[in-house]
């Protein structure tokens, strides 16, 4: 992106930037990391990611928007829950592995207690049709939210080096093998995944070399 032109003063010198750079703050202690991540997680109904941005970037100013995005992209590429990976990378940057542990513990410890208590309560109330009905409905919505994520992901496939048809084909094959045929996931991912990565590698390196065929 082009740099915006700085207004010049009368003698031709560039004026200072219009917006001052916001100083990033740092967490003061492991306890503070634990506390903030706990507070973040407890507000995260349905998903912690939006709250994470609000807390870390806007409220605490521990990360810049670009910094947050960079760590998030890395967290999403890595295996595992992206918001936990984000906590690990953030915590590690400030306090090493202890920081990673404090952030992760904040993210998971109190919420785990809450969810375990809820599960035990639901178990006790399992003979109430309202409870089982509510859980069934929530299960369908959970399925819908997950499929919604899949639909949004499918929207990004047109930019995939494999090309939309092949990418959708691989996706369909994965669904058929894992979801319908119930083959163990490890073999499908190692098999199709390796093929997918090899094909992507080939396409990327060949697209880089010559003009579009």
């Amino acid at each position, binding site marked *: 992106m082009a740099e915006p032109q700085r207004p010049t003063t009368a003698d031709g010198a560039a004026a200072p930037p219009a917006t001052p750079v916001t100083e990033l703050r740092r967490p003061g202690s492991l306890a503070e990391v634990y506390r903030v991540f706990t507070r973040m997680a407890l507000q995260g*109904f349905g998903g912690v990611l939006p709250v994470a941005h609000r807390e870390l970037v806007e409220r605490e100013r521990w990360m810049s928007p670009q910094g947050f995005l960079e760590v998030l992209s890395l967290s999403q590429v890595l295996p595992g829950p992206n918001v936990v990976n984000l906590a690990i990378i953030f915590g590690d940057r400030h306090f090493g592995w202890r920081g990673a542990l404090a952030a992760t513990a904040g993210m998971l410890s109190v919420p785990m207690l809450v969810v375990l208590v*809820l599960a035990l309560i639901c178990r006790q109330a399992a003979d109430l049709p309202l409870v089982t009905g509510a859980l069934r409905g929530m299960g369908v919505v959970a399925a819908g939210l997950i499929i919604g994520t899949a639909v949004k*992901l*499918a929207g990004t496939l047109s930019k995939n080096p494999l090309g939309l048809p092949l990418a959708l084909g691989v996706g369909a094959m994965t669904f058929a093998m894992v979801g319908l045929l119930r083959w163990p996931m*490890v073999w499908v991912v190692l098999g199709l995944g390796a093929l997918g990565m090899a094909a992507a590698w080939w396409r990327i390196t060949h697209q880089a070399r010559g003009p579009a065929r």
Partner: protein
Amino acid sequence: MPVTSPADTAPLAQTLALLGLHGLGTADLLQLLLHFTVLSMLAVGGAITTATDMHRYLVQEQGWLNDTEFNASIALAQAAPGPNILFVALLGLHSAGMAGVVLAMLGIMLPSSAVALVVGRLRRANREAVALRAFTAGLTPLTLGLLVSTGWVLTSPTRAHWGTWALLAVTVVLNVRTRLSPMWLIALGAVVGMLGLVG
């Protein structure tokens, strides 16, 4: 629901029974840990992409929990505050009580977290590197298939009811097209479910 005698319905007894090991021996528990450890490394796109395989192992293969408990675990973890990965803790709880909670969570978390820690420290991570782009591009179609798979598994007990498909369609459309918080949709699901429209 199994028929229980009056003595069995004492809340404390039931809770304690839930916290127990459900008859799982050491070999079973180690196998549980191992399975979740393997899934941890495959969970590109989050643990929910591996939920189909958790269903295959825990429900179909081992019979440690049924479809209702499986679905309720995921639904509850989504509704409750905190990362949705906590559904794994609930799967562990239903399978083997507190031992199951600890082992399932350690299994699903440790390998991927160790990788995140190591990779996060690499200063020279080049996002334009071909290897990384090939990795992401090659696996994204799989993640798509796995997510649809998980959604498919979650609807299996309720597919016979038209209410399920209506609720599913509404959820997908509102989730994709609007910025409506998932909590409203989950609340809607609870109400629709209580009205008996999804079975």
